[in-house]
């Protein structure tokens, strides 16, 4: 049995698998399958300062080896999260991460300030949600705006701060560097890629938001590439995600440069995916004579 534990920004995780924000709510529904301690951590459904109703349905479309979603940050607001969901999640023996989205810098700062007074373990700043017009992605698509929002939030944030990066950019590594220089404790990537499906009979987009965020195995190679590029560019921990479905994917993402992993869409196909990934990862480490999962991170042997 190898040691699966990892430390990200001073926070200890039992294993490197974190449930990705938006796929697991606050964990209650998946608690029906297994104890949530199966996950090293849970990144909760994106929370905003005020309640948000979300986008009109349909919000979901299937794509080859993946899916589009445009849920639109439906959530009951940060106060509700703090009062109703956080106390429960804190009893589940897993790292609790709040995922914060917003329309303005003030929104982000106020939300983060409220969360800083709770016993949440970490905050993940979502500056990359592609599904709401006023929803944060404008902060995530240039180095200047990403640096500015990180700087602003950093002043209000007393918790370890993860910045979740958008892949819908020309150079993700320089955005990672920009948020690192303003005090981000870690980066997580990739959020969904903006995509679209059209019903050829009606000529209408399948989801009412017209466009949505693409996730699932289809985006995995893009995610591996970006994690590798970002790891080469920053010193802070990198949390890799995007289409991880099997333990082999998890191993590949770690080798590319991830210090921890997030898994999301795979839960929809197989709720037991995290259990299987942890088992497979453990076996792989044993078979390769590695005593800790941290020995695998960024061991890629790239061609010169």
């Amino acid at each position, binding site marked *: 049995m190898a040691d699966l534990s990892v430390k990200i920004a001073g926070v200890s995780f039992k294993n490197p698998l974190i449930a990705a924000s*938006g*796929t*697991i*709510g606050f964990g*209650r*529904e*998946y608690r*029906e*399958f297994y104890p949530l301690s199966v996950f090293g951590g849970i990144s909760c*459904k994106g929370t905003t*300062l*005020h*309640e*948000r*109703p*979300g*986008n*009109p*349905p*349909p*919000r*979901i*479309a*299937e*794509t080859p*080896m*993946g*899916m589009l*979603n445009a*849920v639109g940050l*439906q959530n009951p*607001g940060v*106060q509700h999260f703090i009062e109703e969901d956080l106390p429960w999640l804190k009893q589940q023996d897993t790292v609790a991460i709040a995922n914060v989205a917003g329309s*303005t810098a003030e929104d982000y700062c106020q939300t983060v300030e409220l969360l800083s007074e709770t016993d949440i373990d970490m905050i993940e700043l979502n500056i990359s949600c592609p599904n709401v017009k006023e929803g944060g992605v404008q902060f995530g698509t240039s180095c200047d705006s990403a640096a500015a929002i990180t700087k602003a939030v950093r002043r209000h944030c007393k918790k370890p701060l993860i910045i979740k990066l958008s892949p819908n950019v020309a150079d993700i590594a320089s955005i990672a560097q920009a948020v690192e220089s303003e005090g981000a404790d870690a980066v997580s990537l990739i959020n969904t890629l903006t995509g679209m499906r059209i019903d050829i009979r009606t000529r209408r987009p399948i989801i009412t938001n017209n466009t949505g965020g693409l996730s*699932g*195995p289809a985006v995995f190679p893009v995610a591996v590439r970006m994690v590798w590029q970002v790891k080469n560019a920053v010193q802070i921990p990198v949390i890799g995600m995007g289409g991880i479905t099997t333990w082999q994917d998890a191993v590949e993402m770690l080798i590319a440069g991830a210090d921890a992993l997030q898994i999301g*869409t795979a*839960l*929809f*196909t*197989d*709720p*037991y995916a995290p259990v299987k990934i942890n088992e497979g990862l453990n076996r792989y480490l044993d078979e390769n004579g590695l005593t800790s999962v941290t020995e695998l991170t960024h061991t890629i042997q790239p061609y010169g």
Partner: protein
Amino acid sequence: MKYDAQDCELVAKAQLTATIYDFRLKNPALAAITRPGQFVQVLVPSKTLRRPISVCDVEGDVLRLVFEVRGEGTALLAQTKVGEIINLIAPLGHGFTLEPDKKTIFVGGGIGVPPLLYSAKQCGQNAIVINGFRQRSAVILEDDFRQAVGQLILTTDDGSYGLPGFVTQPLEELLPQADRICACGPMPMLKNIAKLAQQYHVPCEVSLEQRMACGIGACLGCAVAVKEADGRVIYRHVCKDGPVFDSQCVAWDGEKPQPVTSNTPDKKPNEKEGQ
């Protein structure tokens, strides 16, 4: 256990029409906890998203699913052979409010007919079932319903079998003696049934569909607009809050929630934040 993801063996398979299949899947643990009106999420090999299918009936250890081939996923599913394994997340959602000693009218349209069978059985002789189809070749489950319920009325749009026309005609005639309505089918049909139910003051529940990802209430993908008691429209979720909803709560006319921009407890739905 409220639900779980488990393997089930396909123990019997039949084709009911050119496009509709009838699967019997064995899993004692899941069958034991499945209630009428619930659904399952079917894993289709090579597909990222599972397919939501209603439980048509529970026969001992066996879950019966009747589904129509619509797109790629259901076409792949239809190719499953007897003896092969299908993984289900089941049972999901909650079914109709059933009062077996009250006169209950079940109204099904097309592929909305199978989800009613297990529920209608619970009402036995007190169940009146009105099932509507496009034409004679689309009629399914006639014997199953006839054996299980007090009265079965069939309609076809083109009049090639049963009564000609829509289910709403016989429904309106029977409504004065009904205590409840349970309906499943296309949205325009459900909307018309909801209108009649309101007119005759009969409690009515409808089973709705929406595209799903998780199927258990975590991803918020399967939104449906519903009216709250205070008139506010909000998004609820078909997989967890449904698939059955009170017909008077469904936002039939495309009403949408107002953006909420205030956290104060006494907020008004239309309040806009000065920005």
